[in-house]
């Protein structure tokens, strides 16, 4: 065990920090889940890309700098410490990209990854349907084989930032005879294809962060299949592993939240009784524990070459519920100031805690509800019987 960062890792941190200090917008961007905010976030994404900070762990030819996993964690810590904008490209670079690296053809990698890194193609996720949520294997949207490609029909919903995206990755039933996990195929779909209609939907916080996507005999080519016809479930599990596991929610994000919470405690010392202070310190310790757990996980991955398995469900339960508690504590500390929304003149931190609280509340729901994750932990980590 050696918990001191190497000279190379420290140099990497210093370079990231200095670039971020010089370039992170001084005033926070408007929410990336609104049209106006999304455009502002895209400018930021392209600035990141031009400086080769958009996808640090990727190969150089795709716009990265071949950083190690440890360095990626270090970059994430610096990114959120600097208060940099949330990544509107996250569903592409953190969820789809690892799946393309694992299952994509050389042609798909060369064609899709550079444009994704440059925020030219903007990807959203098409999993849920009106009747299909936690029970994802019940997918009804279908793909019908035609000459040279497939026709897609059906509806996807709760598609995050779908209204602002250019492409969708999703699961469709390609074998109408097959049931449940079989007969599904993972498709990469341009949203400007004929027969695709996207409608924005308001999220809890009022932002147009959701979309419904309708497919009416929309044609996609054979090259749009990722990982083989009928292999969709296996390929999708790689994506959900990233979503629950390492890449979507790196520790740097929660450490930054916990640090801001500690600052809030210091600035409102008179508002906190012992009980609230103890709750606050629990949240801060959880953020530290999550960081240590992640370093341990990455060290094991580097040593053994094995990716995170079903343990990603333990991870997802922990970070999502920690995020809720951190924000809940901040709102308790704010008292009557807590309800002031962004845009209100006297809102503390521009209303970031109420905004973040509403976002955090989604955590135990998306990427597979935490009830489902607890079943996964019980059955596949602990070995309890399914039935």
């Amino acid at each position: 065990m050696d918990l001191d960062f190497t000279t190379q890792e420290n140099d990497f941190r210093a370079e990231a920090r200095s670039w971020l200090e010089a370039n992170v917008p001084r005033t926070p961007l408007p929410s990336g889940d609104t049209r106006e905010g999304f455009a502002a976030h895209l400018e930021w994404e392209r600035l990141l890309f031009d400086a080769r900070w958009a996808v640090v762990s990727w190969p150089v030819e795709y716009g990265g700098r071949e950083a190690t996993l440890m360095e990626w964690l270090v970059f994430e810590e610096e990114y959120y410490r600097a208060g940099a904008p949330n990544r509107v490209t996250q569903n592409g670079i953190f969820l789809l990209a690892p799946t393309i690296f694992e299952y994509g053809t050389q042609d798909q990698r060369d064609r899709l990854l550079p444009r994704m890194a440059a925020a030219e193609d903007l990807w959203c996720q098409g999993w849920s349907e009106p009747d299909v949520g936690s029970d994802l294997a019940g997918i009804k949207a279908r793909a019908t084989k035609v000459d040279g490609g497939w026709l897609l029909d059906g509806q996807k919903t709760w598609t995050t930032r779908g209204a602002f995206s250019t492409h969708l990755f999703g699961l469709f039933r390609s074998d109408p005879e097959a049931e449940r996990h079989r007969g599904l195929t993972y498709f990469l779909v341009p949203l400007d294809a004929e027969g695709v209609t996207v409608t924005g939907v308001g999220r809890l916080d009022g932002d147009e962060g959701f979309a419904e996507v309708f497919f009416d005999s929309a044609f996609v080519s054979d090259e749009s299949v990722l990982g083989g016809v009928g292999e969709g479930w296996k390929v999708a599990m790689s994506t959900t592993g990233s979503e629950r596991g390492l890449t979507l929610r790196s520790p740097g994000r929660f450490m930054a939240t916990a640090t801001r919470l500690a600052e809030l405690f210091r600035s409102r010392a008179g508002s906190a009784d012992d009980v609230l202070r103890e709750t606050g310190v629990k949240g801060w310790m959880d953020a530290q524990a999550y960081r240590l757990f992640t370093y341990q996980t990455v060290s094991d991955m580097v040593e053994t070459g094995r990716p995170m398995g079903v343990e990603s469900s333990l991870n997802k339960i922990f970070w999502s519920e920690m995020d809720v508690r951190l924000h809940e504590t901040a709102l308790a500390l704010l008292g009557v100031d807590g309800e002031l929304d962004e845009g209100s003149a006297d809102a503390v931190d521009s209303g970031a805690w109420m905004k973040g609280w509403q976002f955090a509340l989604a955590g135990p729901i998306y990427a597979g509800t935490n009830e489902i994750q607890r079943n996964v932990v019980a059955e596949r980590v602990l070995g309890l019987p399914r039935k």
Partner: protein
Amino acid sequence: MSEMRFRFSDEQLTFRDAARDLLAKECPPSVVRAVWDGDTAGEDAVWAALCEMGVVGLRASEKHGGLALSDLDLVLLLREAGRVALPYPVVETAAVAVPLLDEIGGSLAAEWIPRIASGETHVAVGLPGERFVPAATKADLFLLVAGDAIHAVPRGDLTIRPQVSVDRSRRLGLVDWAPSPATRVAEGATATGLTELSRLRAALGTAAFLLGLGRHLLDITVGYACERHQFGVPIGSQQAVKHKLADVAVALTFAEPVVYRAAYSLAHGPGLADEVVGEGVDVHVSMAKAMASDAAMLAAEHALQCHGAIGYSYEYDLQLWMKRVWCLAAAHGDARTHRSVVERAVLG
């Protein structure tokens, strides 16, 4: 290309596996229960085997017959001792008394460490804040703190008033003694520093032991929930049971690296250069004890509930682990006490 590495070495993992095998063989629940009934033959045998393996003298320097290894080398072994609910206070002996004697040095260390590490004699430790001394009746030497001095008091110079812990294997004693220049072995800043270090080692070692207790409680409860049928199905197929045990798995999983990092900090100083707050070793140890205590208490609570009435019975072994958790969660600083240490550092 070397990287920061949060992983135990192959040697450390091999040592852990050997200790696990030995303890599984030498310390079944019947040995723990026998100690409750005053029969320590099994305990003496397992202690002799641990001495033979080098666990007890692991922290002593080579000139005293030890392995000259660190808190980081010991932490996984203490977790293994927790898995079997080893009745003897291994934390106070191997993690606290042995390095303390080694650091005091001189004839005290030369005389006592080889005999303690071989199991020939026993040592007890009374740190500030810990009113009662575990396994007091077995000890021949007592390391005690008075003011800014550490004293090494032979059994003959003190009296022990036995106390009855809810965990009978604890064998607590209240030690009556009077400090004298003859028993003083360290004083002033040296003694204060060693006392603080001893407190940190005791808290960290107890945290590791609690992780083992908690993990065992989770394992036996999973086993029981697979076997026990009600309404025609294993009770472990019910989501209400699954979710309780998943919560225990989460709590233990995220407490573990916190305990290992604290062991690293004690052995090598704080790594993971963190500029968020001025973190010291004491903050790392307090995080470890707080999270391990909470995780083990949750494991005990859910283990009892998922076992139902059988878990509540005196004859069933669950209680041996559960009651140890209750005691050790409070020993060497409970979760609230340790959180307050972190709180002062973080929230100001």
